[in-house]
């Protein structure tokens, strides 16, 4: 990775973190409603992953989607506006936190039914294969999603039909309050790909550089061989499953231990140690992000509510 790109990744990770911290405050203040799942702690995963894609590659994920949206190039303004349910959000305030999409940026959404988007991801690849292009579909999902039938149906069909899907399991150790070993027959999720004769790999999701390198390699394989690949990325969410999670299922020491492995802290140190950036340069990025997030909040708060007629638009296309 070139220096500029590394600094850009750092910027993206800090942007996700700060935007969500503000989001959490706005949620507490009652300005954001519904379910909001924070990505804090997992920033290196989608940042490293999406940095490795071509613009024509499609991205689809679950409801923990703010980071993915930002990484795909959706503006902080639009993300914040959607969180506040405003007309200027990318889903016009109809989708909210869990449903961020901007198909012009090949971000095909946050999806709230666990595992439900996996067969749809296969479908993207079916469509692209039918069209005769070599686009890749990058489909992200949680560890918990690998225990539902959708996952298995989608993986199987992607293998027998030689679909260009990069399956990405974000193993953050829990599906809500259920630890992986209480819900999954194998704790290394990548092993599930073996059952489908699918190539797979595993990478440390707290190190954005490693994620990026693994993603580049996996995408090269998918594109060139026209075969699916499952990449397991090990990570941890620093916050509750969603806002208001009492977190009775994990110990504070465990959370603390992982927090010492902060992906932003790790990358910050790497950039300094390798003399890729000075402290001043990184501080400037922080300051730029602070300003961008503040502006996004201002933009979202000043934005209009969707008009009442919007209730009845977009139900049908014809």
């Amino acid at each position, binding site marked *: 990775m070139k220096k500029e790109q590394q600094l850009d990744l750092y910027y993206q990770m800090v942007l996700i973190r700060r935007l969500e911290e503000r989001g959490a405050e706005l949620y507490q203040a009652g300005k954001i*409603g*519904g*379910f909001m799942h924070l990505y804090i702690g997992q920033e290196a995963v989608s940042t490293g992953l999406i940095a490795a894609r071509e613009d024509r590659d499609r991205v689809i994920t679950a409801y923990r989607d703010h980071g993915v949206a930002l990484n795909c190039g959706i503006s902080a303004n639009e993300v914040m506006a959607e969180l506040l*349910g*405003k007309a200027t959000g990318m*889903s016009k*305030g*109809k*989708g*909210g*936190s*869990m*449903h961020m999409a901007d198909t012009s940026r090949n971000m095909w959404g946050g999806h*709230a*039914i*666990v*595992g*439900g988007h996996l067969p749809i991801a296969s479908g993207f690849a079916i469509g692209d294969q039918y069209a005769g292009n070599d686009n890749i579909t990058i489909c992200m999902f949680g560890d*918990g*999603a690998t*225990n*539902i*039938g*959708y996952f298995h149906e989608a993986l199987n069909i992607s293998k027998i039909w030689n679909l260009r899907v990069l399956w990405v399991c974000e193993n953050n150790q829990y*599906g*809500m*309050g*259920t630890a992986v070993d*209480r*819900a*999954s027959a194998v704790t290394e999720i990548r092993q599930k790909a073996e059952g489908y004769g699918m190539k797979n790999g595993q990478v440390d999701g707290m190190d954005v550089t490693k994620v990026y390198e693994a993603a580049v390699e996996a995408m090269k394989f998918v594109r060139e061989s026209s075969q699916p690949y499952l990449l397991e990325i090990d990570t941890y969410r620093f916050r509750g499953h969603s806002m208001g999670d009492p977190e*009775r*299922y994990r110990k504070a020491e465990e959370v603390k231990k992982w927090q010492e492995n902060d992906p932003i802290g790790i990358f910050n140190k790497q950039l300094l140690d390798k003399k890729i950036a000075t402290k001043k340069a990184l501080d400037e990025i922080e300051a730029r992000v602070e300003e961008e997030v503040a502006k996004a909040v201002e933009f979202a708060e000043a934005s209009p*509510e*969707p008009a*009442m007629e*919007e*209730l*009845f638009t977009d*139900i049908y296309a014809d």
Partner: protein
Amino acid sequence: MAKITMREAISQALMEEMDRDPKVFIMGEEVGVWGGTYAVTKGFYDKYGAARVKDTPIAENAIIGGAIGAAMVGQRPIAELMTINFGFSAMDYIVNQASKLHYMFGGQFTLPMVIRAVGGGGRQLGATHSQTPDAIFAHFPGLKVVSPGTPEDAKGLLKSAIRSNDPILFIEHATMYQVRGEVPEGEYTIPIGKSKVQRAGKDVTIVTYCKGLELSMKAAEELSKEGIEVEVVDLRTLRPLDMEPVIESFKKTNRAVVVEEGWKSYGVGSEIASRIYEEAFDYVDAPIIRVAQKEVPLPYNRTLEQAALPQVADITAAVKEVLK
């Protein structure tokens, strides 16, 4: 009489039945260590242990299919759907298997199982997480569908459901767990398949259930101040449907409004209205009005979502309209 919340009522019913019958166990997502997403089974895991309070993987088919199998071989499982929306992921097991196996195999075995499911909108959860699809499930013979509107009914009906030998879908409303109401002291059950007059009146009959009951009781109160006395009939069970109290009330008032949270088309209101027309046509003084959700997937934005959901004002307006 003790005044308790809907959450406490459901929780008590589960606990009393688990204490009474060792065949009863619970399985579902986050029912154990977490204590239930809506805190209904808080403390159960410590009290009954992992064998009777089973945290499942996120696998709705394995949950409902598993409950069916366990019930067929003689246990009394209570399967929990974290929300009824995830029931669509297990639709085949609910409507194509649970509802048919007893009949199709000539009654050789029974399916003494309850599916507890949380439904309803109003929490800004977006289109896939906010539905009130009760009518869809009530469409299928072989499945019983219960959806209470008061803590008293919730407790008594759930206890009956657990003791019943039929598969029963028990639908709770996500915004009603804090609703308080009087509950009889000590042991009681309420029979499934019996509608109930929750408020007596002479001018208009409101037929409703679950969240609709909460809204209708408020509407009735407001209307009463204006001298309009509404009789509120609570269905409590959608299948089997008990029309007797509805028809009896209608013969007295000759006017009806049906209130439900789900969509109007092909909904509970459609069923009730046609049953009234069929069974009491000579008593009809005005077209029956259905108050229901606007025909849109529910949006996230709070103002739009509330505009799509039936409100107390929609009910009072409908009552005045049928009185014209």
